[in-house]
């Protein structure tokens, strides 16, 4: 315990200084949220590359939470869904139901190339299509996988902070 305390004292603040706020247009729904966006992550058939980057975006270095975004455990608590991966046949209906469970105003962020256009999995037999084929998408984050900075910038577009 003493060792952990010394480590905390030595490391101090790990988070990098906040970059300039992104200048992309905010979706209309984001305006109503007032600097607080709770996010439910849905893995619709991802290879877990994007998950690692989302984890990094909320880790100590990038600290997505400082902009008012927070990952939650239930779609009912959420304002936005982060969807990763090409939507597989088995995840099509669960994704649709998860979207229906989010109270309005609700938004969807498609993270990664697979979520945007199926990436390398395009026209594979188990894939229904990109996220936009199942639920309306408000914001896209390109990359395979996208850098944590890009994910944080997308979150800041939603929170406006």
């Amino acid at each position, binding site marked *: 315990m003493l060792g952990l305390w010394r480590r905390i004292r030595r490391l101090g603040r790990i988070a990098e200084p906040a970059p300039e706020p992104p200048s992309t247009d905010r979706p209309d729904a984001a305006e109503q949220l007032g600097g607080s966006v709770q996010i439910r992550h849905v893995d619709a058939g991802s290879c877990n590359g994007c998950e690692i980057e989302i984890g990094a975006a909320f880790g100590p270095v990038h600290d997505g939470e400082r902009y008012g975004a927070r990952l939650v455990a239930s779609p*009912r608590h959420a304002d936005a869904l982060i969807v990763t991966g090409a939507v597989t046949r088995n995840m099509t209906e669960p994704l649709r139901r998860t979207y229906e469970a989010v109270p309005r*105003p609700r938004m969807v962020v498609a993270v990664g190339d697979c979520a945007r256009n199926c990436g390398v999995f395009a026209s594979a037999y188990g894939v229904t299509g990109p996220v936009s084929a199942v639920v309306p998408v408000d914001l896209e984050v390109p990359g395979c996988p996208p850098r944590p900075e890009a994910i944080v910038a997308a979150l800041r577009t939603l929170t406006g902070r």
Partner: protein
Amino acid sequence: MTDSTTLGLVGGLLQAVVIVAGAPLLVGLMRQVRARMEGRVGAGIRQPWRDLRKQFRKEPITPRGTSEVFRAAPVAMVAITLVVAAIAPFVTAASPLPGVADLFVVVALLATGTVAIALAGIDTGTAFGGMGASRETTILALVEPTALVAIFALSVRAGSTNLSAIVDSTLAEPSAVLSPAALLAAAALVLVIVAETGRLPVDNPATHLELTMVHEAMVLEYAGPDLALIELGSAMRSAVYLGLLANLFVPWGIATEAGVLALLVGVVAFVVKVGVLGAALAAAEVFLAKVRLFRVPELLAGSFLLALLAVTASYVLA
């Protein structure tokens, strides 16, 4: 109207307002302390209020198959906690309802709030709702006796189970704070608060894994304004428990006579005490991991033993 009744009414109203307005800030402070110790920047202590404001504006959702119990539970929980916030000695030692500011009434009221949410968790009919409710009830059953016995150890000295009387007796006899009975009871009560407010090592408030949840699992189905009430109620419970701990053991600063200055000092002292306790709790959490669910009864049995020793000490060593 006598002086004490006026003080009770004004102070009761004041402390209810302070707790409703300040409880989300307490949650924000605790998250901020954690964030700083983890090397993060944190969202700021006003973030829980931003969350609440947004959730109150969102669409209410009633899941299919739920009954009136599900809809009434958040309101009931907040209302019950508000009663405790108004009557227990937080800002002022006088109570608007002196007969109700009793150890047994306050502990039972807080337990009723937990039971309301547990019933709502069962009412959703989901696997995780029922699981969370059963876990919460198990913990509640183990924690309630400890809370009663620990505060009872303090009431032995005061000769009354009235919380205001306990606070008054500590004010009259400051050395009693360092008596073995008081110290043992304080240790037991800290564990009670950790378990009842769903903090580490009993429950992890930041978990996303349904199988490890206790409190969160019961409220997974709430959305919008109902969720805001649940979160406000949980925050108020934390503030009430920490306020009870602070004022039962370190009551100095509490308003004992009517007057603007006395009440002002009372509010400031209460806010500072709860803030310091909350920050200390959050800082201690950084060093802890959640214990396995089946080890929680051992932890709570230990706290019950401390409470029992406190009662014994208050009779034998008094």
